């Protein structure tokens, strides 16, 4: 658990982060969104003390993050940034081994960990371990960057626009990978982005920052249904609100008994996908199947339209 308690950072008398308090639950993904200059990166960098706060405190599992030296704290917290930040003069394996080496792990344990992570990120250890970062594609470099951040098995992973430099297709893949990794390790992830789609796709909870303040902090649905300020409304995109609402719920949640003809949809797809299928195929109902392919019922156009309507 990360408790951020009335944290403020001032530069030359101007508050970049202004009296922010929030609690981040363990084993969740929290996404901090905001425009550039909203203070989201500064907030993130105060968690691992790359930036020291002017006032306030941050506690990790109840322990003040100033109770140990900054560099020791940072070895316990994963850190991945935009453009990966890999060390160009070290091989992929050496890059990933950086923090375990700093922590003085045994050679064998480090090698095993590096191989495990490379395999997890779908990079063949024998092939990619000895390569240098410039020999990899952008998507591969980014994966190595995240693997390096996870090497010492941190409970907390901080990510600053980690997918900002990737093209849309690779970015979508990287986001899926991140969700899988988070499930695998149960890591608490705090991710900063300015991309609302990314936020809605990844987050358990979203914190919206504007001019140094957190203006709303809650689950994605709450942001869409009851935006706290006009800024949040604008950020979500007023015209996209019905689709956002559908995009954060699964088709399985809108199932009703009954039959429907045509190509079925799996229950773990989003309701937005279901709506798109309906509109595109000109049907009024879709059969829904479970992940294993068992028929579950159907979703209807009417039901989806009701769900997308403004909450009363």
């Amino acid at each position, binding site marked *: 658990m990360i408790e951020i308690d009335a944290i403020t950072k001032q530069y030359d008398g101007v508050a970049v982060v202004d009296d922010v308090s929030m609690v981040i639950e363990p084993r969740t993904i929290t996404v901090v969104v905001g425009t550039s200059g909203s203070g989201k990166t500064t907030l993130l960098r105060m968690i691992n003390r790359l930036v020291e706060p002017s006032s306030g405190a941050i506690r990790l599992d109840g322990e003040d993050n100033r109770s140990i030296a900054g560099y020791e704290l940072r070895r316990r917290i994963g850190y991945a940034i935009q453009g990966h*930040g890999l*060390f*160009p*003069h070290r091989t992929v394996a050496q890059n990933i081994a950086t923090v375990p080496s*700093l922590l003085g792990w045994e050679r064998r344990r480090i090698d095993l960990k590096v191989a495990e992570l490379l395999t997890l990120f779908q990079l063949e250890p024998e092939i990619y371990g000895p390569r240098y970062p410039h*020999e990899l594609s952008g998507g591969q470099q980014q994966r190595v960057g995240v693997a*390096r951040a996870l090497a010492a098995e941190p409970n907390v992973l901080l990510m600053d626009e980690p997918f900002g430099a990737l093209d849309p297709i690779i970015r979508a893949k990287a986001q899926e990978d991140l969700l899988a990794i988070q499930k695998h390790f149960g890591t608490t992830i705090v991710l900063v982005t300015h991309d609302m789609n990314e936020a809605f796709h990844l987050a358990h909870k979203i914190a919206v920052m504007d001019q140094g303040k957190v203006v709303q902090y809650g689950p994605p649905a709450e942001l869409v249904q009851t935006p706290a300020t006009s800024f949040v409304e604008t950020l979500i995109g007023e015209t996209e609100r019905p689709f956002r609402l559908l995009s954060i719920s699964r088709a399985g949640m809108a199932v009703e008994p009954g039959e429907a003809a045509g190509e079925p949809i799996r229950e773990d797809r989003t309701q937005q996908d279901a709506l798109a299928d309906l509109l595109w195929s000109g049907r009024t109902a879709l059969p829904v199947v479970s992940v294993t392919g068992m028929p579950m019922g159907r979703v209807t156009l009417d039901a989806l339209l009701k769900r997308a309507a403004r909450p009363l």
Partner: protein
Amino acid sequence: MRIQLDKLGIVIALLAAYGTLGASFAVSKPNRIVQGQAKSILDALPSWAAWALLVLLFAAAVVALLRTSAWAKLIAAAAALLALALAMGLTGHFLTPAGNTYARVSPASGFWILLFAFALLAADAITRLKPPPWMRVLFLILAGAGVGGLLFSGSWDGLSIMKEYAGRADVFWVEAGKHVTLALGSLLAAVAVGLPLGILCHRVEPLRASVLNALNIIQTIPSIALFGILIAPLGWIAATVPGAAALGIRGIGAAPAFVALFLYSLLPVVANTVIGLSGVPKDAVDAARGIGMTNRQRLFKIEFPLALPVILTGIRIVLVQNIGLATIAALIGGGGFGVFVFQGIGQTAMDLVLLGAVPTVALSFAAAVILDALIELNSRAVNGARSG
């Protein structure tokens, strides 16, 4: 079949033709100071050797002229250079009358032109071969061994430069030692001071401009003027600080030369350290901090290795510059190869000037080759081994 000519080969062949036919090969003098008598290859060598040399040079020039492989050119150049060196040694013995210790034989313009032409051919061939760094160092060692072998075998003992050496063998090695000590010592001192200063300038932004400007100003002072400027403060230190004089600190001599070379060396070392460090990718530095490296670990594990090729380039500039500049130290009694150069100028004995100049050039050349190889090895490491 149309014969394809090599462009540089044409220049080399023309130079070789002029060096053989148009210019004289050697000069023979009754003693070391008077004007000598120019001799062509045919006059300067026994006829069998003269013709053998001519045929070999002709063959090498043809290889240079035609579009042949780089290895063929390199072998032709090496053979021509070796033949020239052996022939010059033979000339020394051939033209010196038996038992005459005053007569002097030295290489003339034709020899130097031929040497230049085939050295050019060798350099061109080596460039085309794109040899890895270790092979360039190997070439250097082979060339050094060749020259060493010739010197050791006594083949050149008949030449005037070796006669000048024979009379000064002890002094020569003492001055050589002083020269290397001056050049390397001032470099080491400059690295010891300049590296930390460069790191400091990189980390403390406001310091950068003022330090670099101050070093720039020093760089613009002519060397002789700098020696002059240093006489007063060093003289004062020698006179007032106890023990300073015992350490060899004086207004003239090695101390001001050392200090001047050190001051000249600082700018390239500091400037290249700053440039190298600021060229390190920003996100790599941020990541290094973010994953928990201490300041020191970040400097030594990330910033310094990535900046090393640029820093080494600075050191290369300094070393080559210092080996040349150390010659001037002789003017204020600092010793070094300059001693022979200035003595030679004073006595109008050009052979003595050569005795000082040739080793200086050879040293700079060797230093440049070795450091270039080091730089290349390190930039490969920085950019990943497989890219080279």
